[in-house]
């Protein structure tokens, strides 16, 4: 039996106004285990806390019940008080007689009666409390960044800058991501390559950073501070450490008609390829679906021309196992497919393109060497129609498109329109918009310049149909301000396709037990207060995998994620929440029900030896809870058929004692 002290707070008149605090203190005196009971005006004040500390010493208290405001308010305070008095902080229970009693009941008699019952429940519970000590686990001081776009690059650089080792896993042959495909960046119009490629080089040269390109994460085990990750390095059939990136093989490769992903299929590459000139690592990769040598065993030209001897047709996929303390997800985004939007004739005409394709068309390293030419006939387009919100802001249950605003399209469309008018003043540029959304530093100014200085024609309305006819694209659209239907003969139509999370994100989320929303964006631990952490401890979010973002926002989030990682890796040990589940192995059946419902993968199974009644030993499968991973929800305790699983701090018997005290 505990020696319980009861402290009833007046909270000025907040409680004392509707609850007879003295009567409560008096009534609780006779509860089992209670050896001291008193009341005071402000229990949370220094004087009130001192009163508790003194009482602990004078009455040898082992448990404390404070009848006061909500535990969400002052539980932490009183736990500290208990600790200061030499008690285990978890020997404190709060009876909420303010928010859930004095403030919601008007009658003194009723309020007092209820406060006494709530006090009794707290006393009944504290009698069954046991001292709890948070568990500790070591931290592997290395981080993994999944995704090598600008988000992953920035996160990795920041973490490495703090002195920790970082690995980047990128599924493509080079890091750089979407930003490497962009031409200029809004709102400053500096060239994307000029600001990105130096960072890529920094990554390559940083001793703390390793790049696993053309690789993917295939398995994640463990928990915060102690992740075990399997990385699959896909065979690129080129020895990475030997290849100098000279490009001789590219020139000689006979398979020259492979659609070039980097230019979105608008030109061709060879079967052995380097995605672009500034690729990091600058190493060739053989596309096994295109290479004659790999498919039919004939050719081998690249091997002959490679003076370094880097070609290896026998290379196999390689699996690497690594340990990390923290994982950052930076898997990015892709434009959605335009398949379902053929009212814009995307499948029917080469001159209907997406905005990302437009970036490549205007990029000096793109398929047309930076000249804005129509993909169909290579002619200069004189009339260009930009359509915004293609697939964004659709009804939730719509069969095509996404419910959310893709956020970046308004700005890049303004950029495209402005750059077109700047370079080719003879071009008519129309932008059809629903709303122009420019909340960002210098964003609206940028958009207004497009209209006012560059003469881009912004039309409030939407395009309804694009009809390719002859060499024109007949655009039928509405102008809601003029209340007219417009018919424009355009040469080029550019669709601002909605963006969506990369397809690799969903299986990754499963591996990480990190949650996602219905759109497959990763969910943050708190939408406002913990925006770069996933609810799964040790997993952090960087960039567009969490929601649509432009470059400045991505970079700030990347830095924020890095600082969270650094904060974690700087610790030698992690202290957990002690209110976690634990299984009594003598009672555990090993049936897996608990592991089935655990949202965190905190439960594993071990074969353990047990002494049987007949003195033999038998091996049995039993559950083990990892206290560093368990968050204390209690789902397992109810799934457990034998009652072996219980939750510290909210044990079966404790809750039943509360029930009994209330119903008595």
């Amino acid at each position, binding site marked *: 039996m505990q020696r319980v002290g009861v402290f009833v707070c007046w909270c000025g008149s907040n409680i004392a106004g509707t609850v007879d605090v003295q009567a409560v203190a008096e009534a609780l005196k006779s509860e089992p285990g209670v050896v001291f009971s008193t009341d005071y005006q402000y229990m949370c004040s220094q004087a009130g806390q001192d009163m508790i500390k003194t009482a602990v010493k004078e009455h040898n208290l082992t448990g404390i019940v404070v009848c006061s405001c909500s535990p969400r308010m002052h539980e932490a305070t009183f736990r500290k008080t208990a600790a200061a008095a030499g008690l285990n902080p978890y020997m404190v229970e709060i009876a909420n007689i303010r928010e859930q009693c004095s403030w919601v009941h008007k009658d003194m008699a009723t309020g007092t009666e209820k406060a006494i019952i709530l006090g009794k429940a707290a006393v009944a519970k504290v009698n069954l409390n046991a001292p709890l000590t948070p568990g500790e686990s070591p931290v592997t001081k290395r981080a993994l960044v999944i995704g090598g776009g600008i988000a992953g690059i920035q996160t990795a650089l920041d973490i490495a800058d703090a002195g920790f080792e970082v690995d980047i896993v990128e599924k493509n042959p080079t890091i750089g991501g979407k930003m490497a495909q962009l031409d200029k960046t809004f709102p400053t119009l500096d060239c994307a390559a000029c600001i990105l490629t130096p960072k890529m080089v920094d990554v390559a040269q940083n001793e703390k950073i390793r790049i696993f390109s053309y690789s993917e994460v295939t398995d994640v085990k463990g928990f915060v501070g102690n992740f075990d990750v399997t990385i699959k390095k896909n065979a690129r059939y080129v020895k990475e450490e030997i290849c100098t990136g000279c490009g001789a093989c590219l020139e000689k490769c006979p398979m020259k008609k492979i659609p070039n992903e980097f230019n979105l299929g608008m030109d061709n590459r060879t079967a052995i390829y380097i995605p672009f000139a500034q690729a990091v690592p600058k190493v060739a990769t053989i596309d096994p679906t295109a290479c004659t040598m790999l498919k039919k065993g004939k050719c081998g030209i690249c091997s002959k021309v490679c003076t370094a001897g880097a070609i290896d047709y026998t290379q196999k996929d390689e699996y690497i196992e690594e340990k990390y303390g923290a994982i950052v997800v930076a898997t990015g985004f892709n434009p959605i497919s335009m*398949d*379902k*939007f*053929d*009212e814009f*004739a995307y*499948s*029917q005409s080469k001159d209907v393109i997406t905005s990302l394709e437009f970036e490549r068309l205007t990029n000096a390293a793109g398929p047309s060497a930076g000249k804005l030419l129509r993909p169909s006939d290579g002619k200069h387009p004189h009339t260009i129609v930009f359509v915004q919100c293609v697939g964004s802001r659709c009804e939730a249950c719509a*069969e095509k498109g996404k419910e959310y605003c893709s956020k970046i399209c308004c700005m890049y469309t303004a950029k495209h329109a402005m750059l077109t008018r700047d370079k080719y003043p003879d071009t008519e540029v129309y932008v059809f918009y629903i709303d122009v959304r420019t909340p960002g530093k210098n964003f609206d100014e940028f958009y207004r310049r497009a209209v006012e200085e560059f003469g881009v024609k912004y039309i409030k309305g939407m395009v309804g*149909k*694009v*009809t*390719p*006819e*002859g060499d024109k694209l007949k655009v039928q659209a509405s102008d809601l301000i003029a209340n007219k239907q417009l018919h424009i003969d355009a040469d080029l139509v550019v669709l601002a396709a909605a963006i969506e999370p990369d397809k690799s994100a969903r299986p990754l989320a499963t591996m990480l037990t990190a949650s996602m929303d219905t759109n497959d964006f990763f969910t943050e631990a708190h939408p406002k207060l913990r925006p770069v952490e996933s609810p799964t401890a040790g997993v952090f979010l960087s960039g567009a995998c969490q929601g649509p973002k432009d470059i400045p926002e991505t970079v700030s989030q990347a830095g924020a994620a890095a600082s969270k990682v650094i904060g974690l890796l700087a610790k030698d040990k992690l202290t957990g929440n002690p209110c976690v589940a634990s299984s009594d192995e003598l009672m555990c059946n090993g049936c897996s029900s608990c592991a089935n419902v655990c949202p965190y993968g905190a439960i594993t199974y071990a074969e353990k030896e047990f002494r049987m009644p007949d003195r033999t030993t038998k091996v049995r499968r039993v559950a083990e809870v990892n206290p560093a991973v368990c968050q204390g929800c209690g789902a397992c305790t109810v799934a457990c058929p034998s009652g072996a699983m219980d939750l510290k701090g909210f044990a079966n018997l404790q809750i039943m004692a509360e029930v009994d005290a209330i119903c008595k």
Partner: protein
Amino acid sequence: MKVSYFPGCTLKNKAKDLDLYSYKSASALGVTLEEIENWQCCGGVFTSADDEVATKLSSVRALKYAFERNEPLVTVCSACHNVIKQTNYAMQTNKTFADKVNRYMAEDSYNGEAEVYHYLEMLRDLVGFDTLKEKVVNSLKGKKIAAYYGCLLLRPNKVMRMDDPENPTIMEDFIRALGADAVVYAKRNECCGGYISVESPDSARRNSNAVVKNAKAAGAEMIITACPLCKYNLEKNGADIPVVYFTELLAEALGVKEDTNA
């Protein structure tokens, strides 16, 4: 295979060809079209208002007939198909509406259980375009044919579910199965004007012209359609390439066009 067949008003009058060639082709493909007894006109257009009941009863009767015989209900005319399919969807999804309708029905109630196929869907899903290809005797090789869907076959897609409403391929696949070249053009799913030729003949003319012009620009030598009203509008407004029913083309390819026995 036996199916319940709803011909519709026009097929018994101005569009007798559409009806005749449907029968001939079906029998060549081993499908028996059982004309629904005492079918009544579908009404031509579907009234989307939920409180319109009486105008939809004829469709429900046809649906119920097919359901009770455990046969798919096959239609040819785009308008009939649209009205019947939309009515069936309303019977499935709108309980209040279905209750009202069922109060008009004798005996058992009906709740949208029947399966409705357009003749083209029957060819694709029940017969199979591959099977169709094998049965072709007069290949239409070299002919450049444009499919004209109009609006009623495809929309509203939520209900019709025939094909991608913006990039349909069923009629193109049909054309290719007959050996001809399918001409794809953007206006194939735009409206010809429909019944507006009563109210604003100019509007119908503009719409129809735009369709024909777009098809021709894409290289079409012939347009096929499933809808008598589409055919009428396109032809009346001066189409200078032939506009024919798809079943006529089918009968020709199957070699049963002149067959007098069917």
